[in-house]
């Protein structure tokens, strides 16, 4: 279970302060599919970064499976990111010098999984997302939809308990977007992973068990 208590993130730009996340209280049950919908600049990405322990809050707390993350060291936060959380970034963030297969293998390599096991699992994941025949391609030889599929496969590599997806259908045409939504729904059902998806795509909101609206850093159910 994920719980945030009075979560706030303020960015300071010179003399001015911008409250990207304002007093957010959120509870996400294990295995649920939650959408956070809102316009650009609403604070969705910042909220995901806070929950994903990439960023630290200005105030408030985040509990992951009952653990208060504010007391965790940098190393412990990294371990949680590596072992428990899968990230689907808004801008793909694939490593351009690595093939699709190697991109998927990377989180496993960081975990110290033996190479032959990495390869086997990466091939399996790429096949699952429909890219079994494009494993050896560099990202620049993949379409936007295919790159998104690779990021999804990479997010699944370490069998995470939580997947944080930031605009997973962004930059995709509606048909490809629909396929990605179907894939996320399928993975959620198959693996019982908790999904928190930031989006402004109403189709995703449609398949979510719970949808929150975010405006000016504030979260509304």
């Amino acid at each position, binding site marked *: 279970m994920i719980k945030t208590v009075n979560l706030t993130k303020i960015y300071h730009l010179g003399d001015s302060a911008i409250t990207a996340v304002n007093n957010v209280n959120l509870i996400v049950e294990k295995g649920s599919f939650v959408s956070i919908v809102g316009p650009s600049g609403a604070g969705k*990405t*910042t909220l995901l*970064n806070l929950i*994903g322990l*990439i*960023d630290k809050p200005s105030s408030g707390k985040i509990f992951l499976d009952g653990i208060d993350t504010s007391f965790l060291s940098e*190393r412990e936060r*990294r*371990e949680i*990111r*590596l*072992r428990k959380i899968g*990230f689907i*970034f808004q*801008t793909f*963030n694939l*490593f*351009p*010098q*690595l093939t699709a297969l190697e991109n998927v293998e*990377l*989180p496993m390599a*960081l*975990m110290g999984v033996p190479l032959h096991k990495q390869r086997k699992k990466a091939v399996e994941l790429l096949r699952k997302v429909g890219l079994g025949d494009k494993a050896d391609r560099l990202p620049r030889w993949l379409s936007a939809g295919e790159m998104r599929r690779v990021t999804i496969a*990479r997010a699944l590599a*370490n069998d995470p308990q939580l997947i944080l997806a930031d605009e997973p259908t962004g930059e995709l045409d509606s048909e490809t977007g629909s396929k990605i939504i179907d894939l996320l729904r399928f993975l959620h059902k198959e693996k019982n992973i908790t999904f928190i998806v930031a989006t402004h795509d109403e189709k995703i909101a449609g398949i979510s068990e719970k949808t929150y609206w975010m405006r000016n850093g504030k979260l509304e159910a």
Partner: protein
Amino acid sequence: MCLRNLRRRRLRTLLCACGIALSIAFLVGVSAAISRTTAIIREMNFFFEDEIIVAAKDTFVIQGFPIGGTIPERVKEELKEIAGVKDVISMLFILELKAGEISRVFPANVTVGIPLDKIFQIFPPAFLKIEGNLPSNPYKDVLVGKSIADQYNLFVGSTIHFKGKKLTVTGIMRGPSILLSRSIIASLKLVQEIQRYDGQINMAIVKLNSNVDAKEVSEEIEEKINYVMALTESERNELTHPILEELSFWNYGTKLFMLIMSGMLVATMEIMNISESRRDFATLIAIGAPRTSILKMILAETSLIGVLGGFLGLLLGSVAAVFLASFYTSIPAIFFLQDFFNLVPPNLITEALTLAVFICILSGIIPALFALKINVSEALRSEY
């Protein structure tokens, strides 16, 4: 991943490696020339350890050997009368520096005239390994250094014409000495005749009795024979010290300059690479890589560039060293290739490679430390 990064930016990597290669090539070329010169200078004194060298007053002396200036051969008798002197060996040592007939026949060589029965007293057998025989006929026999013999295809028994004189090669000197490899040794009489130094020598080697203070004897020599100077080993070292020090200064100065240039080049390239890879680094950290892995990755990248640049530079530098040596001595390059490790010693090769890698790692540290401080959430949002 490092290799892929370098391959991805292959033009930049190649240019950077070429820059380092040029620095290392320059470093190797200059060091090889300087270390060869230094080795020859040091070797000069090696032959006359614990002995006093007597030369004409105010002559320029490099270690054991005077450049210019003559003294009459009869000085030998005067020297023998001085207390503490055990033996005196007269010698003509002529560096062939002039262009013309001589340098066409024996370019950049050394002609040594010495009483034939004293050869091994001056040049110990460990240095003077002779293929053939010592000269027996003082009017036509000569010993020739291996470098000269190889260059002119001379063998034991070959005849050479030198200044209208027909000479016979009785032996080839095949020792480790750079100096002797470019020398012709003949009887003092013969060299005096060929070089037109009738009754003249330019140095006398004074061997001392045991338990005699060399300094005191040298002072006595200068007092009693007013047209000579007598130099002990330490005095000769003092004379040469500034030359060696200056050579060393230029050697280290050049190295430092080239290494700083290389370092700046690598640092600039790495700063560019890092600024282009900010989002990649942020992604790595976000998915759980330790920040130190970024440091390792950057340092591995720069050290790979160092290895690449080092090997390229070594190759270019070796070629440059061979051609420089060939150009300045008029000896065909092929002869330096045969004796390559004398020109570019293994310790210079090791030093050049180590320095290339070290300076590249060092130059990568500061950009890497900046990369470690990356703000992950901000970098994830950036374009690159």
